[in-house]
Each structure stands twice: as structure tokens, then as C-alpha cells.
């Protein structure tokens, strides 16, 4: 396997051919934020939080989907990037109706955590305040679209790990929604195996286990996806 050497934020690091900038950064303890990224499932470069600068190019690249190359010079943190990341995080908050205080994920939410890491204290722009549904039809789990950031981890884990492909997205643009089967209520899905993987990977409180009080402040730990637990621990969740 070919080994490449490169620089991330001025540090000399090495990785093997085919690895992403995100992978190599993680291995070297350099934290690049990302909400759609999750080890073990395919990356899609959609949340744009992991954008980095490469070799002075004016075009930003998503670290999760950009493969490393020999001699690459990556800037993962500077004032400009932090500002863009704050802006993207703000957009996620404003898109739906996030109310941290009364959310099941309060205190173990990756979006909330990220906003704190970025030192966000407020929003410059108005909320969009769409009217969206809460689906409580499943006997074990719930889906609150108010808190969905469309990272599509649930879609990918259901397809790639569980192999059920219950979830997909419907419509487009701001109307994009997670949906089960033919847009049916989750409880009526013929394909759902109730494995709970989607709930486990949800970075926010959009997918949640019923019966857990808001005040719990933790997630139920399950024995599947051990790599996932590691990832969450690394992020202090």
C-alpha cells in the first residue's frame, strides 16, 4: 500500500492511499467537524462542515470525501473556515424547529455540541419555521422532523448495515424529508426490522427511542455498531 505524507494545519502527517483527509485527521487527533460523516458508512460530503482548503485553491473541499495525495497542504482550521462552519451550523438550526431545551437529545446532540465548539451564541438570520410532522406510529421509536438535519445517516445505515432500506428521502430542496417505504407512517412500514440502528446513529433528536425522558441526557447503549460507540466517545457524547 502506498503511503502518502501531507500537511494538515501545518502538521506533518501520513496516511495510506485511498484514505480521506477526514480519516487521516482523525487518526492524528485533528478534529474536523462533520455531521453527515460517520465511520463505517459511505460519506456523501453534504453537511459541508468538514470543508477544508487544499494547497491555496479557492475551492473548498469536503474532507470526508477528498482522498489524500502526496504533498497535499491542507488547512482545516482558520478564521474564514470557522466563520463558514458557523454559518452552515446556523442554517441547520434555522431550517427546522430546533428547541434544545426540550429535546430528547439535549446534552447528547452532535448539532448542539458543534454549536458550542464553534462558540455560537445566537443566530443572525430568521428561522424558517416550517410545519413538519412528528411520526410516533412505531411501537418503539419516534421520528420528529422538526429536529432532522438531513444528514442521511439513518438512510445509509439502514441500507448499508441493516440491508433493509426502509428509509429514503422524498421531494427535494427545502421540502426534502426522510420517509419510510412509500412515504408511509413508520409503524406501517413493511420493511422495518425495528433494529434501532437509525436511532442510534441520529446526530440529533430526530430519531429517538420512546419512553426516554428529556432529562436523561444520555443515549441507550446497544451492543451493535461497536465502532459507532467509539466514534461517539471520541466526540464526548
Amino acid at each position, binding site marked *: 500500500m502506498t503511503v502518502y505524507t501531507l500537511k494538515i494545519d501545518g502538521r506533518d502527517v501520513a496516511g495510506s492511499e485511498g484514505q480521506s483527509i477526514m480519516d487521516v485527521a482523525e487518526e492524528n487527533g485533528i478534529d474536523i467537524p462533520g455531521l453527515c460523516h460517520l465511520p463505517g458508512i459511505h460519506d456523501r460530503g453534504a453537511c459541508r462542515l468538514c470543508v477544508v482548503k487544499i494547497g491555496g485553491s479557492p475551492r473548498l473541499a469536503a474532507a470526508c470525501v477528498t482522498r489524500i495525495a502526496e504533498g497535499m497542504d491542507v488547512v482545516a482550521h482558520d478564521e474564514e473556515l470557522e466563520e463558514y462552519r458557523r454559518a452552515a451550523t446556523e442554517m441547520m438550526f434555522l431550517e427546522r424547529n430546533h428547541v434544545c431545551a426540550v429535546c430528547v437529545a439535549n446534552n447528547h446532540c452532535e448539532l448542539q455540541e458543534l454549536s458550542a465548539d464553534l462558540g455560537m451564541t445566537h443566530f443572525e438570520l430568521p428561522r424558517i419555521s416550517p410545519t413538519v410532522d412528528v411520526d410516533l406510529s412505531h411501537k418503539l421509536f419516534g421520528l420528529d422532523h422538526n429536529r432532522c438535519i438531513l444528514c442521511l445517516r439513518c438512510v445509509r445505515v439502514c*441500507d448499508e448495515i441493516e440491508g433493509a*432500506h*426502509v*428509509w*429514503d*428521502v*422524498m*421531494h*427535494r430542496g427545502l421540502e426534502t424529508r426522510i*420517509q*419510510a*417505504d*412509500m*412515504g408511509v407512517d413508520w409503524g406501517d412500514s413493511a*420493511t422495518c426490522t425495528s433494529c434501532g440502528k437509525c436511532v442510534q446513529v441520529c446526530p440529533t433528536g430526530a430519531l429517538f427511542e420512546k419512553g426516554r425522558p428529556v432529562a436523561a441526557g444520555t443515549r441507550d447503549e446497544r451492543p451493535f455498531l461497536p465502532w459507532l460507540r467509539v466514534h461517539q466517545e471520541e466526540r464526548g457524547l
Partner: protein
Amino acid sequence: MPVLHAKPAPPSDDKRWKIVETRMRRMGDRPYALIEALHAAQEAFGYLDESALNYVGDTLGVPHSRVYGVATFYSYFTLKPQGEHTCVVCTGTACYINGAKEILAGIERGLGVKPKQTTPDGKLSILTARCLGACSLAPAVIVDGAVMGKIGAAELVAQLEAM
């Protein structure tokens, strides 16, 4: 490798399913035939109902949620039956600066329907198009397949009301 699965029977013995089935078979009943199959079904039936989506998905081995995702992504596909008559208003740039906005406003005032809506009596559906490429006729509308160019809102509403 194509996933091996039993080919489902068409939802009914309506002959139009043959057209859909043939279009899929010509493409080897492979998942990439999905959009073509949806086109075929919509051409045949006018819109895509759940049985059509299920049938196409099951034939091509595409999960239902993905079929639904594709069918709702593209604005050309419609999951609801259209009105008896259709009026497509072009909202391309040339039509926009030549008064498409007034036409849509006029329709809403006169007939009480917005784009993508059908009148309660099921008579008329109002649609919009990004650009019909008929910029020389701006503002252009298509009523039941016939293009009408350089038309005013009042004139159009009168025509639609007469239908």
C-alpha cells in the same frame, strides 16, 4: 450482479401495463431503468399511483422508499391525477419579465387556484414550467397542449373559465 427476484405480476390486467413491462424488459429489468419505467407508466396512465410505483420497484428490484424518493424528486412526475384540462404557465426568465407573474396572479384571483393545484371540481389543473423554450412567445402558456403566446392574464382567465 443483478439481484435475483421473482418478477411480479402487473397490478391489473389493464393492457397499458404491457407498455411499462416492455420498457423495463428492454433495459434488462435493472435498477437503472427506474426513471424510464416511471416515464412509461406516467405516459400510459397520466400519473403514478402507488400500485404503479410498487410494480416498477418490485420488477426492477429497487426498494420502495427509493422509488418513492425518485418519483417525488423530479417535478415531471405527478402522483395525483390531473384535472380534465391543464394550463401550464411558463415562468422562464423571458416570460417572467414579460408578465408571467401577472398571469399567475390573475389565475389565482379569477379561478382561485395556485400552481400545482387543481380546481375543486377537478376541471382544471394549473402547472408551471421552468422554461418552455418558447421565449419568442413570452409570456407563453400551454392550454391542453396548445401553446398560446403573448397572452394577457384577463384574456387567459376568460378562456379558462369558458372551458
